């Protein structure tokens, strides 16, 4: 067991009947980092989190929180949790929900402080049941951080948030990290992992496919996107070496390539008219799709 890790899964296996939710999965959360766990639905993300929270016990392997069993209430006093599908009592006001959850912790933040930091002061005296979907997520985020946790588990925290609310939450997360909190975040919004994560773990079919920094992940995949306005036919470009796919969006051609330099050279040599040339690294979305795809293909092949 690494002395430095705040939470760790090592070699965990978990089956639900015939389904192998986790099949020898390792995960480590280090101090002060934001770790994003990415994976398609059913990959085992939620199972991994529930093992770390002590909601389930692994069939094999170990789950540790602060080097202890997550079943111990003392270690859970150092964590905050925001789950994906939770409905809180609609009759209680946001302020009252915070007061309740904060009472579970030895040294919680003051309620006004929590409201201010999560930008929920305006919601404080409204019944939870009357909030919009996005406002409910904001309130749940306030509950997750009210106990002044050292480690925060956030399951898809920004689902349903408008752009402004999401920006506020991102800022709060960055501030938390800055102040020494560690965060484990699962998300479908890949730009969220790109914007926030120090490290990314990609999980597919119950196994960690890869992990590393966002930059490392992109490097692993190494795909580039090239777009430009041109009259060239997509089927011609598709035949060029290094081109993986071509799409036409009105007058713009969108090319995905493993070797962008070769494609650009070819574009210039082709003497076709083109304008507004843009080359960029593939987003994490593409990297992620590719990684899980490759993993699945390998499994099929083996």
């Amino acid at each position, binding site marked *: 067991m690494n002395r430095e890790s705040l939470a760790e899964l090592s070699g965990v296996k978990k089956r639900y009947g015939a389904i192998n939710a986790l099949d020898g999965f390792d995960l480590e959360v280090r101090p002060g980092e934001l770790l994003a766990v990415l994976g398609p639905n059913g990959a085992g993300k939620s199972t991994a989190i529930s093992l770390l929270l002590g909601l389930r016990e692994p069939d094999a392997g170990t789950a540790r929180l602060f080097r202890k069993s997550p079943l111990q209430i003392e270690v859970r006093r150092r964590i905050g949790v925001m789950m994906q599908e939770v409905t809180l009592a609609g009759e209680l006001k946001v302020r009252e929900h915070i007061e309740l959850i904060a009472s579970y912790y030895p040294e919680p933040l003051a309620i006004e402080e929590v409201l201010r*930091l999560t930008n929920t002061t305006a919601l404080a005296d409204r019944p939870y049941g009357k909030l919009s979907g996005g406002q409910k997520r904001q309130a749940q985020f306030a509950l997750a951080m009210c106990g002044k946790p050292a480690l925060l588990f956030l399951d898809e925290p920004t689902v349903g948030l408008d752009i402004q609310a999401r920006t506020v939450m991102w800022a709060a997360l960055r501030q938390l990290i800055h*102040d020494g909190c560690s965060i484990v975040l699962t998300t479908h919004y890949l730009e969220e992992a790109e914007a926030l994560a120090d490290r990314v773990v990609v999980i597919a079919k119950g196994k960690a496919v890869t992990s590393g920094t966002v930059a490392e992940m992109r490097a692993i995949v190494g795909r580039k996107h090239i777009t430009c306005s041109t009259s060239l036919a997509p089927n011609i470009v598709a035949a060029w070496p290094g081109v993986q796919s071509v799409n036409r969006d009105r007058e713009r051609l969108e090319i995905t390539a493993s070797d962008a330099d070769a494609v650009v050279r070819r574009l210039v040599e082709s003497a076709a008219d083109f304008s507004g040339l843009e080359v960029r690294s593939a987003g994490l979305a593409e990297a992620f799709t590719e990684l899980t795809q490759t993993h699945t293909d390998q499994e099929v092949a083996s």
Partner: protein
Amino acid sequence: MSATSLPISNVGAASMEMSSAKLWRAYATEIKFECLRAMRAPAFSIPFLLLPIVLYVLFGVLLAGNMSHGDPTVAKIMFVNWAVFGVMGPGMFGFGMFVATEREQGLMTLKRALPMPYGANLMAKLVMTTLFALIVVLTLIAAAVAIGHPGLSVSQYFGITLLDVAGSLPFGAIGLFIGTRASGKSAPAFANLAYLPFMHLGGLFYPLPKSVQPLEFISPAFYLDKLGLWLVGAPNMDRLANNIGPSSHGGPLLYATVLVTITTLFTAMSIRRLARVG
């Protein structure tokens, strides 16, 4: 977003022990908000706080008083019976509905992941349902003293209060059992499926026909009612209808034992289920 630093320094350094004062405060906070939430839920508070007193005054005092020409024994029976009816609802539905809903909505799971003190949510529900039961009994006593004239002594009112507040527990245990198995939507239906026969077979509203009488033993309300009638020295409806005095067979100890057994059994099964499945 504020640029102020979050006061999350000494992360991991702070002691994670809760002083017993803080622990008690956590339990008290859980209880406070459970009660507040139940009071604010009209589907719960209106039927279970208002209905008993309205029905008691209407049927127990006015109708039964008229029909019996103010017979004090009938007035006693009516008071005891409606008090039993009054404490059944909060127990069965307070646990049944809320536990099922919270399980379905993931709140039970969230609280298991959070450092909620052991059993705080169930304890809060227990206090909430007994508080509701207490309010119901006290309002019935107020109505009885004001207009019902059952002629009970202060100690008898006190005894009935204690008995019926404690008597809400077996119903709470059955409600909890339903809540740990049913979904949020089906829980009220299942609770009614038990509540209605319990009510009618308890012999609370009318003398049961002879053919149905053997079934009254399955209703916890029957035993609680018998205990209440024993406290005030009145026969139950069946015996009153047949002009025979208070029951000689069975005794308060037997009735109490049955109720304690029901409470223990259903609570144990529910807690086992919650620990395993959540």
